């Protein structure tokens, strides 16, 4: 019995030591070499939050992964039929060992609850963490509600240094993204420009099927649903380029539905926005009035599959493309 327990302690000690070494090496390598390069980078507050949370999870994942792997490797090496001269362990301890079970369940529960708390803090603190929050976001940054209401009323303003939330509408359709800026007369463009150091409210909607607006480096992802305004917030920091991809399967050309955007300085953004607004005046006049959602015209943007050519009578949404000539 004494021999057994010392041998048992030896096994456990060796496993623990190997596990500690591997885990420490893994953690050090990860935090020094990998952590700061983890996607999606730190271009915005939400991206930074996504990256930090990923790294925290990775920090917890490594001991778990290495624990099981080291144990399995040790078992395969030491307790294999060929190498282990002793018979397999028997007795009541082989059937259950209450302390081990209780410890295991306690530790996993505590870790899991801790991670859920971390995630929830990130979710609330970063105003939805860049994820789509639906039409009535509960985790809004200060000033967002007013800015959104003003945008719909057509009274929104934004200027460099005003520290206001900038609402931007993302309109997805098969198979492209366009953007409307309600603060600047509601012009529509296929170029996504954002000012630096500004809180952005993306209002994401779709004209046909479900898409997903994924501004990769911004750490923003929100599904684009027809007739739904899905709001996602982020706070830009320094200027830079970012990629936009559709990340929800939306039909044949889903794979080709991407474009890119830019975060520029506030003054550069202002001059771009004002310039585009005046250059696009004629086009903007042909667009439907700015609204959070649009109903596709049967002849227009994405319609064509309702034979009667009529749009549903019970939606208060604007008809998108209604002023285009009938085809």
């Amino acid at each position, binding site marked *: 019995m004494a021999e057994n327990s010392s041998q048992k302690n030896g096994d456990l000690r060796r496993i623990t030591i190997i596990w500690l070494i591997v885990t420490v090496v893994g953690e050090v390598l990860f935090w020094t070499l990998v952590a700061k390069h983890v996607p999606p980078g730190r271009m915005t507050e939400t991206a930074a939050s996504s990256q930090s*949370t990923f790294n925290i999870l990775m920090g917890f994942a490594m001991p778990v992964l290495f624990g*099981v792997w080291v144990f399995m490797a040790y078992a395969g090496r030491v307790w294999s039929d060929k190498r*282990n001269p002793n018979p397999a*362990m028997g007795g009541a301890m082989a059937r259950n060992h209450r302390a081990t079970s209780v410890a295991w369940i306690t530790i996993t529960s505590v870790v899991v609850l801790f991670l859920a708390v971390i995630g929830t803090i990130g979710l609330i603190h970063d105003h939805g963490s860049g994820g789509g929050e*639906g039409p009535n976001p509960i985790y809004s940054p200060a000033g967002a509600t007013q800015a959104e209401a003003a945008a719909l009323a057509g009274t929104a303003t934004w200027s460099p240094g005003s520290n206001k939330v900038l609402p931007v509408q993302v309109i997805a359709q098969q198979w492209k993204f366009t953007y409307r800026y309600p603060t600047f007369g509601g012009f529509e463009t296929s170029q996504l420009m954002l000012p630096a150091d500004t809180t952005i409210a993306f209002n994401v909607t779709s004209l046909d099927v*479900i898409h997903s607006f994924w501004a990769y480096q911004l750490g923003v992802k929100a599904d684009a649903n027809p007739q739904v305004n899905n709001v996602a917030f982020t706070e830009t920091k320094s200027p830079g380029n970012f990629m936009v*991809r559709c990340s929800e399967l939306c039909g044949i050309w889903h794979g080709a539905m991407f474009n890119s955007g830019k975060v520029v300085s506030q003054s550069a953004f202002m001059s771009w926005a004002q310039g585009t607004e005046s250059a696009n005046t004629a086009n903007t006049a042909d667009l439907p009035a700015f609204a959070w959602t649009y109903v596709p015209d049967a002849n227009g943007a994405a319609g064509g599959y309702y034979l009667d050519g009529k749009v549903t009578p019970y939606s208060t949404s604007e008809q998108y493309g209604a002023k285009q000539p009938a085809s």
Partner: protein
Amino acid sequence: MTISAERPTHEDVGTPRTPASRAPWTQRPGWLSQHLGTAIVVGFLGYLFGHWLGNAIASNYTYIANDGQNTVADTLGLLFMVVGFLGGIGALNYPLAKIVGRTANEDEETPVEGWSKYFRYTLDHKVVGIQYIVGVLLFMFTGGLLAMAVRSELLSPTTHLFSPDTYIKIVSEHGTVMMMMATSIIVGPLGNYLVPLMIGSRRMAFPRIEAFSFWVFIAGYMVIFSALPLGGFPTGWTGYAPLQTQAGPGMIGYLLGFAVIGLGMMAAGFNIAVTIVNYRAPGMTWSRLPIFVWSILATAALLTLATPVLFAGGLFGLLDKTAQTAFYVSEHGGSSYLWQNLFWFFGHPEVYIMALPGFGIVGELVPVFARKPLFAYKIAAAGMIGVALLSFFVWQHHLFQSGIDPDMRPLFMLTTELISIPTGFIFLVGMGTLYRAKIRFEVPMLFCMAVFFNFLIGGVTGVFLSDVPVNVTVHGGFFVLSHFHYTIMGGLLFAFMAGLYYWLPKMTGRMMNRKIGMVHFWTMFVFFNLTFFPMFIIGLLGQPRRVFTYAKNLQGLNDFSSISAFLLGLSFLIFFANLMWSMFIKPEKAPANPWESLGLEWQTASPVPPHNFDRIPVITTDPYGYGEAAAPAPAYVAASADPTSTSSQT
């Protein structure tokens, strides 16, 4: 040992009768009666009839004016094909006879000699189990070929092999086929074959419904594949709604296929659950039930409770497409979120329908090869029940970014992370069993170890996905794709392989070749990880799922993954070669109990007699007493005390 108290109600089935030479030839056993051939012929006639009927009643009812594509005709054609197939195989003889009040001809109960029984509607759970093996392998190999096509297209960042149209149809068909295969891959073959043997029963509770579940599964396979000749569908296996409504007639194959296979899943689920609850041998208490049976019980509960939601969801979609209802059309008062909710309300329990049987196989096999009792048996059973219960409360984590009900995100983040606690029980049980064991690294054991290795990666990345801030980056990309391949393929499929290598000697009396098995295991394990691990990185670097183009700087990783995937495909050919070699070309006779298992299924005669046990065994202990003095000798069953007796009386 103790000899059985007989339960006479178990007696009738399988008792050999004199061949029914007086019966009409359609119901005679053997090749002259109804079999797969007649089913295919009648199914084809049913298709023609349904298609004609649809054109007759709804000839003007097309999506696009004058395009000649009548959705009603396509739907009714496939529906009558299913009915015809089931009628042709003989699944409807008994219920129809009962409905019209005739004496049902019960000749399908007669055991048939020879090969023909595998192509017939038969009530022997062991035959159904073997039929299921062939069925799921058929699914798996077709789905696998589609996967090879997907990886071929992704060799280049631009479109080069298939048109975007063809590519998205291949992706969608691959996902749908594989998911439907995976719901049945263990419950169907091993569940049906082994559950009665493991609980000491002579039959399943509802043998006709069991056979029905298999043949409906095959009919569903045909319906899902009919989507390709109908023009394919572009929605992926998730079939999100506005795109589903917009899609062409191939979508009908998807929607009806889900409904038809769903029928089989529900039938299989409650049949197995009822069997486990009611047909346990005397002494087979809940605390002596093999852990594999526990996992199948939890799975059966999920199949029974979750699948109706998919069934209804599929029918709603079919009605939207044929009868112009608007369940999912938001412009007409429906909601595209309705499909997402219904689909994932089924879809997330389904994920555990796929995971639990794998846990069960691992729990069952590891003690045999570790030569140690299963560690913490009750925790293992509790873990499975806990996973099954929690799985109904997590589905909205698929909708974190969808804009629906966002206030609930903290709750669903919590429930999703909680589910890793009962999942962790399985690792406690596995590692505890390995502790100071004497492990025999046979092929099934290697597959079990691989399940622990792979599922750990799959499970840990699941925690990343459940965390909303990280989910923003990893949702809808290759990260999640890799995650569920690690759980389903790395967990379930590896466990299925372990189960096949382990139980095929019991089922067929022939050993799988060990050397080829080793080659198969190592190629599959290595190339599985080399295929899917890079996909985590690809996903983090920003590649969305289901795309035919991707950023040029990701080509290296994608090519690495593709080439590994081809070699992974090769490992399945090695498996197939091993199967052919060991079963047909050079069969090697299996010993009665090649793994020295204490499991009840190994104690009955080999090959298993038509009614499993000459005497119903009396169970005195659980089957994990390895190395225990008090453990029963392998024959703790009253094994064939009187081999001539077919209906033993005490």
